[in-house]
């Protein structure tokens, strides 16, 4: 699956799609692959604050629990409620319909410190190499 060129990425495999000061956040195709079939999602309430580098939710497969880390700080303006009943959207469309939350960022320039698409692709290539070594 292609990684959208206009997104930014974290080392913990979250993506950010920034439009003005509004950021949509999700987990990457690499992350959903590692996790397997997603069966459960726990997201923060609208109005709550998330802080860069801190966990804001969890995504679970049958086998594993994964904490999701905030790529930047801000206030949650929307959570993807559809995922409560159809968490598998994270597997089928991780960069689109499987988005987790939308956040009004306190400081949108935080996002420019994250990896761009080319850097992230190189990063996961090196991760896969490590895993198979």
């Amino acid at each position, binding site marked *: 699956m292609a990684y959208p060129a206009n997104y930014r990425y974290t080392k*913990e*495999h*979250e993506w950010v799609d920034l439009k003005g000061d509004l950021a949509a956040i999700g*987990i*990457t195709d690499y*992350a959903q*692959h*590692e*996790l*397997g*079939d997603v*069966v*459960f999602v*726990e997201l923060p309430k609208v109005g709550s604050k998330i802080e860069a580098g801190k966990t804001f939710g*969890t*995504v*679970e*497969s*049958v*086998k*594993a*629990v*994964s*904490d*999701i*880390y905030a790529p930047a700080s801000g206030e949650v303006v929307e959570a993807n409620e559809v995922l*409560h009943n159809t968490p598998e959207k994270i597997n089928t469309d991780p960069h689109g319909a499987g988005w987790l939350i939308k956040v009004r960022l306190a400081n949108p320039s935080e996002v420019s410190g994250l990896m761009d698409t080319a850097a992230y692709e190189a990063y996961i290539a090196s991760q896969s190499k490590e895993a198979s070594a």
Partner: protein
Amino acid sequence: MESVTTPFITELQKTPLNAVHRRLGAKMVNFGGWDMPVEYPASGGLVAEHKAVRTGVGVFDVSHMGDIRIRGGGGTGSALAAVQHISMNDASKLSIGQAHYSAMLYPEGTFVDDVIVHRLGEDDYLLVINAGTREKDVSWVRENTKGIDCLVEDLSDAYTQLAIQGPRALELLQKLTDADLGIIKNYWFTHGTVSGLKSTLIARTGYTGEDGFEIYVPSDARTSEMVWNKVLEAGRGFGILPCGLGARNTLRLEAKMALYGHEISDKINVWEAGLDRYCKMEKGDFIGREALLRAKAAGQTRALVGLEMVDRGIARDEYCCSNESGEVIGVVTSGSPSPTLSKNIALAYVPPAMTALGTPIYVQIRAQKSKAQVVRTPFYKRAKKAAAPEAAAKV
């Protein structure tokens, strides 16, 4: 995203089928020091594998399991005496060709490991043990049979063990063997030719709560791979999938079969684990018996129960349990979504007073106390076929 499983650096042990799993694109994990497939995403992954075993058939590489053979050294019944001494079930009740579930206990009445004991011959037994406890078990058996005239052999590396499990397992395996599988009762075994391999041990055993067989073939990579491929080929019409440890875990959990290090361990005794019916106190002395007598007299402080989540959320291994007023009263030993039941289920140790069906138990899931309730176990029980006689109950 960050996984809760920690990366592991030390050299892992590999089964003879390791390269085959990797070629199939399996996701590999460290399981008790073994590099094992947890699921095969390319053929559908964990949930598909689980369902294949419940409705069709699946094949597991379980060669990481260990095998200890105990044979009489000449004196009559000396291997039996050894098995009786080190395990809690009554091996004198086994016919040749029969197996049973049992456990080796510490003098404290807690678990060294659970085992399947097979009676191979007149005074000849095969104990199938867990992967993570192999070395410990072998030295335990050697140490505790020293005064008994018997031969203890570690055959763990001699066999590739495949588990063929599911309602279509018999049909599948029958295509590969001349042995009449239909007459083998649950927890019995025979020897037959499988894919040209003479005298292969074929046991009607498993760890899935489903009908099925486990076969033991020579462990060289070529033979192991040949048999694995034959099984997959023979199962094609039955929707066979290669299955990993992930499905093995959800299947055994639904069937309430114990997993060492979770429901049973060196800290948990037989009564607490609810394995009374495999512990034959009247058979005579065995390691752990005295402590179990004392424990029985002292009374039980915890018991294993099945839980079903009422609130949203998945109970996981080691999560805390509390009562309605918030006091911590127990712990989850295994917890997972159940693919068969589409519910979130768990096994947990709680005080005996809280084991009645319907009792509310609160599971600490991250920051929240989520409600669960005690339910009947096993969570899943297969429908009995009139044609397949059921011998001793499975765990």
